[in-house]
């Protein structure tokens, strides 16, 4: 790729000139920059696909949670019905318990009455015989009282109490079962929702991680800027030198064009080397998969 006006001493043969070296280096730089741009595009595509995939996963997770909550809501109405029934049971128990002191009081009063009567009878029994009629009358009255208490009405009342106690005992067992089920219902609901929300949270974190690849792409593009700028300076300098070639050929100038072209070739080679070194300093996110678990890369550049 020699130029007819190239003042390079090697121009006479097939040896590449300084200008060739410069152009080759700049071509290499272009290839490296294009490779990095390709990489940025690939990263961007990978990132987009990953985002789509994660968003779909999140939508699936969210949908499952919504379905679950919808069904759990219907279930909670069953629980609510149970709570209402339990309230009624508790009210019944409460009513039964509330009337017990009154019932006990009546029993207590009757026993006190019996006790008082027995005391009177004991006194009468120890008294002279003329009180025998009174004694008999009091005993008859006492018998009447006891009969009244142990009569059909009293039996029915006691039987009713017994039936009520058994019924309330059944309700109490049901109440205990219901409370156990309700407790387990809410515990399980909470566990499942907490677990699922944790999964959603991890999914969102993953989504944010994926979104950070945009920053990697931006940095790759940003780093192209200085290299392109240096490349432009080189091209401008080379153009300026090329403009001098006719004058050099005509002997109108004695500028050290050759040295300058050699310098440009070196600059171009250094530009390529610097660009590659600089790129190598930055972590390639594609290499993340190669890391051992927990290994922290020194070159990670996300944010």
């Amino acid at each position, binding site marked *: 790729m020699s130029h007819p006006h190239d003042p390079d001493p090697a121009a006479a043969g097939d040896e590449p000139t300084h200008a060739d070296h410069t152009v080759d280096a700049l071509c290499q730089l272009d290839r490296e920059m294009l490779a990095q741009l390709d990489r940025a595009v690939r990263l961007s595509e990978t990132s987009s696909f990953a985002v789509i995939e994660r968003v779909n996963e999140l939508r699936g997770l969210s949908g*499952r*949670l919504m379905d*679950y909550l919808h*069904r*759990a809501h219907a*279930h909670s109405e*069953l*629980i609510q019905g*149970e709570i209402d029934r339990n309230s009624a049971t508790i009210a019944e128990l409460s009513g039964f318990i509330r009337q017990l002191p009154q019932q006990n009081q009546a029993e207590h009063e009757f026993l006190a009455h019996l006790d008082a009567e027995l005391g009177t009878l004991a006194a009468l029994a120890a008294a002279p015989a003329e009180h025998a009629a009174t004694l008999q009358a009091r005993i008859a009255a006492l018998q009447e009282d006891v009969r009244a208490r142990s009569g059909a009405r009293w039996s029915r009342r006691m039987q009713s109490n017994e039936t009520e106690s058994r019924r309330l005992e059944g309700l109490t067992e049901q109440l205990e*079962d*219901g409370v156990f*089920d*309700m407790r*387990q*219902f809410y*515990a*399980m*609901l909470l*566990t*499942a*929702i*907490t*677990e*699922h929300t944790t999964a959603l949270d991890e999914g969102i974190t993953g989504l944010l991680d994926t979104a950070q690849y945009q920053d990697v792409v931006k940095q790759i593009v940003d780093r192209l800027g200085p290299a392109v700028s240096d490349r432009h300076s080189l091209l401008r300098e080379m153009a300026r030198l090329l403009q001098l070639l006719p004058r050099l050929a005509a002997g109108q100038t004695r500028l050290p064009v050759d040295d300058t072209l050699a310098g440009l070739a070196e600059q171009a080679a250094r530009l390529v080397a610097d660009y590659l070194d600089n790129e190598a300093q930055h972590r390639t996110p594609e290499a993340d998969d190669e890391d051992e678990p927990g290994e922290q890369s020194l070159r990670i550049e996300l944010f």
Partner: protein
Amino acid sequence: MPRILLIDDDALLRETVHQLLALDGHEVSEAEDGDIGVRLLREGLSVDLVITDMLMPVMDGAKVIVEVRKLHPHLPVIAISGGRRLLTLQFSLDTALLSGAAQLLPKPFGRAALQAAVRAALPG
């Protein structure tokens, strides 16, 4: 020979399921509640599959599934449940699925259903 941890508070069911699994060549460890089951795993019991009841005292099945997944994220869990008066079968199984169970098995179940669930849950 796949090793299975079976967690259920019903001793009779544990015995029956244990025998069914043993007939298929599985090595079975038992736990009578979720807390004991999780403790066995935490203490180093190595298994290929966990089968857990959902409705148990002390630690319910949903909590068991979550704890198992924390200890061994890839260890599959089969949730079994018969439901109760207020905790319906549907709710139990929904909760198991949402908590991360790999397979669901409504009680009562037969040998074929158990075999199918174990086959589907075990990797490979």
